[in-house]
């Protein structure tokens, strides 16, 4: 009789806890995208703070379930019922962890193509008002400058300093993830090759992916081809020597 009471109580308790976790997951699913979109910080700090808080709530539920199971459920259970209760707890725990892991999977944390478009728009505005400090002539740019640069006036030869603005400076930071996202097809081909034929055999597919990514990085950040080539060599070296595909 006592045992039945424990089982019934545990079942009710874990069901209630699961329902609460479900509410949190729903809240995360509804609000996650809104918070991510509203957060204009390039590092998405507000969104990450929101995500941290939601995960903390899940963790607190998992912690309470675990403590209750260890200190109140198991010490009062007997014989075969302990096995059934263990199963109940394990299933519950797996479900909550899964909810926590899936709560944010639909949220697009960053839209790199959109960030790229914003960068280029602010850059366009910066070059539009960039005139020679000496003669006032409109200065033409031969390429995309993502950092402050010296630009000589073609009319009076005065050296001007061009500041592309803080948004354009971000290009250096998003170039790699943006380039990688544009080479997803090659990356997936590499993953497929690796899972089918192993790491060594997949080296050429990895090389194809890296070369495509480096090409994209060259396009995004002109003037850094040599550095990107060094980066390519480092990545290939890490793959061949250490087996790491970054």
């Amino acid at each position, binding site marked *: 009789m006592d045992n039945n009471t424990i089982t019934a109580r545990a079942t009710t308790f874990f069901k209630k806890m699961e329902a*609460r976790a479900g509410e949190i997951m729903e809240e995360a699913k509804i609000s996650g995208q809104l918070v991510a979109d509203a957060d204009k910080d390039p590092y998405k700090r507000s969104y990450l703070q929101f995500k941290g*808080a939601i995960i903390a709530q899940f963790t607190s539920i998992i912690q*309470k379930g675990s403590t209750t199971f260890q200190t109140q459920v198991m010490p009062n259970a007997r014989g075969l019922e302990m096995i059934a209760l263990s199963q109940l707890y394990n299933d519950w725990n797996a479900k909550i962890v899964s909810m926590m892991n899936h709560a944010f999977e639909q949220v697009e944390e960053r839209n790199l193509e959109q960030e790229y478009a914003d960068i280029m728009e602010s850059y366009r505005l910066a070059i539009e008002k960039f005139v020679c400090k000496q003669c006032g002539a409109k200065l033409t740019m031969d390429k995309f400058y993502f950092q*402050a*640069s010296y630009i000589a006036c073609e009319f009076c030869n005065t050296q001007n300093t061009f500041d592309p603005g803080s948004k354009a*400076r971000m290009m250096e930071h998003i170039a790699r993830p943006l380039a990688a996202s544009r080479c997803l097809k090659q990356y997936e081909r590499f993953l497929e090759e690796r899972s089918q034929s192993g790491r060594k055999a997949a080296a050429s597919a990895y090389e194809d992916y890296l070369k495509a990514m480096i090409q994209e990085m060259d396009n995004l950040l002109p003037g850094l081809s040599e*550095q990107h080539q060094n980066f390519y060599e*480092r990545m290939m070296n890490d793959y061949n020597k250490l087996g790491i595909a970054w």
Partner: protein
Amino acid sequence: MFKKLFKSLGGNLEDMAKDLMKDQQQQDIPNGHDANAHKDQLKAYMNGDMQGAFEAGAASAGMKTSNTAKEDPNDPNMQAVHGISIADYAAGAAKIGEGCTEEQICIALGVEQPMWDEAQTTWNNRMRDDNTFNVINVYTNYFGKAKEHGKLGGLIPNAAVKTDVSDGKAKEHLARLETDKHYFFEIQAALQAAYENGIDGAQWLIDNLGLTVAQVNGTGTKYMNDFNIMAEMMDYQDQKKAEYSKRFAEENGTGGVADDIEF
């Protein structure tokens, strides 16, 4: 109880690993590896010297650590960019983290913005491309010693952080972090606990210690580069994290999400 069980299991595994290494030490080292470095690693590990084991392990793979990294003046990767050396760049980056502007750094170093920008790109790329980790370790060492930099060491942010903590108190915290490793790891624990409870850890530091993340982390480079200290402080940090987590959960309402559900 479970923690104790895992601890003793951990201890047993450690003994087993040491025995296994002892056996392996008797065997020949395969070609292509630095036999001495490998033996040094085993010896250090068996003596419980984590840092020694790490140094020897890194050496056997041709990698540098903060203790073995060298600033060789003939190394092409160590050449100054527009006169901005790796020491200048690391100290500048540390100061920017403390809240100084790039403009302040440029004026103090006597360079112009395009020079600083190019130096920044070049040093960052050198660190990224160097698979011996020499450049990044030289950089890290200078980053931790930013306050010793001749031109940048004394630089104070133009726009100081807004906090109710008095300047004197903030300095006290900073001095204590420099000398008291327990305090440093406690604050790291608080920072982790804050983020995990949805609190902006960086803001928490400003509000409670009057310091930025960069200032706090700058004091700990010497601790973080020493595996023996890291290993020694791991449990302490976990314990402190649990304490802060409980406190933040109560303050932030994150802990009480299922308080009304009773068994």
